[in-house]
């Protein structure tokens, strides 16, 4: 038992932290971060290149692919500090998901072509998984990919595709064998999203922001080498994505920064009697409860990374971390909004933090839905973790 990072890791944290604080435009104490999927995308790419230059963007990659082979704990620290400081520039789709998948399943040529631009922070990828009729039941996806001897012909629609409007490439799952059992007729492909037969239609979320899209493939012809790995093995290839650091530490780290900001706020903000809000026992208790939830999510995130560092595949821990982290994000947003009193409905600059927490409250509604809803995560915990029988696998005798 040792609940402490080792010295080398702590030194890395210090180095990273001072770099970030230096890099943030203006005072990091008031830095609010940026909308990476919106107008600040270019700035985020700039930072990404700097991260690439320092080797941090792909620190998790093996040395043979130009990475550092960094430990899981070091990756946790990286994500923790970046999230805590609201620092843009990380590359979830390219560096964290597609890159490692290519290393395992890509051909030599595919690796040579696609890995270096990711490692250099030069390219934005997006992920085409969900479809209008395939959400939680992803394996039912229908986007049709036909083998036309010298090319693939793609027809269908992807939806909720984050960053598609900023990306130059998309990796996606398509149905290559309509007759096989649903998990066994899916393949993994790459496409240049700027193809004239691919249409990216914006979807504006309820916070009024453009984060995700509908991506329509209409008679898109792809070269044969757009296929990654074996035909009809796409479901399993996509699953390998998940074997890299996925502690979910970004949620408690983000929440901790917001917590500190909210504490400062209620220390300075006074009620109509001139008493600082922090002296209100209800507000005090709300903050202590929040502190506990932040720590709970952090402990589980560390446990995920620890298990990964031991060569174990976290089973329920990953789902627990996702559930706790995303609920936490919603809680912080709600508390921040509640603390604003009547301004909790105002999103202009007269409101505390310019209505940031109010907007966040709308944004984070998606958190418990995306990347496996809370309900799906609980199903996973119950069936894979606790060994309870799957409802859809039961043969019920009808009487």
């Amino acid at each position, binding site marked *: *038992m*040792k609940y*402490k990072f080792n010295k080398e890791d702590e030194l890395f944290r210090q180095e990273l932290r001072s770099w970030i604080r230096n890099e943030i435009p203006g005072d990091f104490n008031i830095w609010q971060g940026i909308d990476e999927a919106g107008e600040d995308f270019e700035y985020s790419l700039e930072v990404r290149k700097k991260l690439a230059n320092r080797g941090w963007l792909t620190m998790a990659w093996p040395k043979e692919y130009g990475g550092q082979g960094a430990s899981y704990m070091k990756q946790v620290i990286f994500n923790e500090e970046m999230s805590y400081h609201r620092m843009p520039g990380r590359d979830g789709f390219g560096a964290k998901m597609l890159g490692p998948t290519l290393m395992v399943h890509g051909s030599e040529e595919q690796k040579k072509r696609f890995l270096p631009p990711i490692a250099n922070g030069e390219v934005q990828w997006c992920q085409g998984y969900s479809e209008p009729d395939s959400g939680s039941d992803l394996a039912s996806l229908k986007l049709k990919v036909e083998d036309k001897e010298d090319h693939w012909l793609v027809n269908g629609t992807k939806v909720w595709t984050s960053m598609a409007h900023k990306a130059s490439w998309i990796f996606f799952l398509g149905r290559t064998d309509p007759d096989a059992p649903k998990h066994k007729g899916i393949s993994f492909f790459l496409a240049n999203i700027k193809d004239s037969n691919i249409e990216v239609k914006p979807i504006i979320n309820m916070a009024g922001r453009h984060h995700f899209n509908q991506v329509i493939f209409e008679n898109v012809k792809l070269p044969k080498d757009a296929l990654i790995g074996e035909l009809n093995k796409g479901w399993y290839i996509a699953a390998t994505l998940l074997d890299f650091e996925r502690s979910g530490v970004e949620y408690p780290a983000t929440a901790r920064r917001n917590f500190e900001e909210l504490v400062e706020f209620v220390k300075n903000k006074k009620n109509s009697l001139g008493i600082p809000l922090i002296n209100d026992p209800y507000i005090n208790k709300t903050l*202590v409860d929040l502190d506990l939830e932040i720590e709970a999510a952090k402990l*589980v995130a560390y*446990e995920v990374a620890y298990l990964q*560092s031991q060569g174990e595949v976290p089973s329920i821990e990953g789902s627990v971390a996702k559930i706790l982290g995303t609920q936490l994000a919603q809680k912080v947003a709600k508390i921040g909004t509640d603390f604003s009193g009547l301004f909790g409905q105002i999103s202009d600059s007269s409101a505390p933090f310019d209505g940031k927490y109010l907007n966040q409250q709308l944004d984070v509604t998606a958190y418990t839905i995306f990347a496996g809803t809370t309900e799906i*995560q609980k199903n996973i915990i119950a069936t894979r973790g*606790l060994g309870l029988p799957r409802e859809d696998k*039961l043969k019920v005798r009808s009487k």
Partner: protein
Amino acid sequence: MDLGLSEIQKMLQESSRDYLVENCTMDYIRAMESDQIGISDEIWKNMADMGWLGLMIPEVYGGSGFNFDDMSILLEEMGKVALSGPFFSTSVIGAQTLLLSGDESQKKEFLPKIASGNLKFSLAFNEKTGSFEESEISTTTSVKNDEGWTLNGEKYFVNDAVGADYFIVASASENNEGISLFLVPSKSDGIEIEKMEAIGGDKISKVNFQEIKLLDSQLLGKEGEAWKTLSKVFNYGAIGKTSEMSGAALRVMDMTLNYIKDRKQFDRPIGSFQAVQHHAADMAILTKVSTQFSRKAAWEISNKDNSNINIHRAKSYVSKAFHDVCQISHQLHGAIGYTWDYDLQIFTRKMQHQKLAYGDTDFHQKKISNLLNLK
């Protein structure tokens, strides 16, 4: 970062689990609820032989020389079988109080006898208010005189008073500046013990100390300076109870999983229904976080410092989580879990002491608030 157990902790975990499962059966636990002392002589002797009673006592005083994070592993296992009784009062609270404040001759005299199972201790701290703050000591007084001291006062919520050989009594010192601790033999004239009916069968008493004559050699630590010791002892107590609860929560979850895999309604195990599965998943979340909170706090007490925020976080979180786990377990067990004969209710009743002992959620949350400077 190493969240796994050391080899020695694994051995302690396995051997204690084997012993406790075999010897501290639910029938035994039920029998001990109506026993005066709450432990059989045989098991007490075994605990001495296995080195548990002196687990945290240094080897020079006849103990095993383990750390508190090791103790927390043993307490998890005790929590799993719902074992209460004088072990905690003697070997966690008593031993730590002596180690922290006893002088060399007191340590030499008493600690080996704790380790060998020859002496039981009981800390008499709380008064009627029932708080774990320094201000709790308001009516118990120790007055200095020519021969030594005279102690008077009425103590409430005294754990394991019956069967204890010595009380460690907290009293306001003469000038009312600070708290002093005294070692008081339980056979002394003027001691009256009255049982308080505890819901979990824990041995809790009112103890009245009247005109107790004490010698200087019975003073434990310096006059008026015991609060420093006590606040540390309470942190051991709080995390000890937290470890028990995180172990007990795992057992309650286990019982529940077995039940819902087995129990059939509508021609299928009820554990196949998602409404039931999501309750089970919630239990898994609560137990997972509880184990991490309690082990981290235990490790920090052993390796960093005895007074830090993670102790308070652990006790307040795990108390609430364990309560939730019991509640969910009852919900999933349906009517059977509500009966006296079914073992689940033993955990639910004993939980109440574990939650309250050494500071309830509210107490520890206020500490968190202070340490985060939320003012």
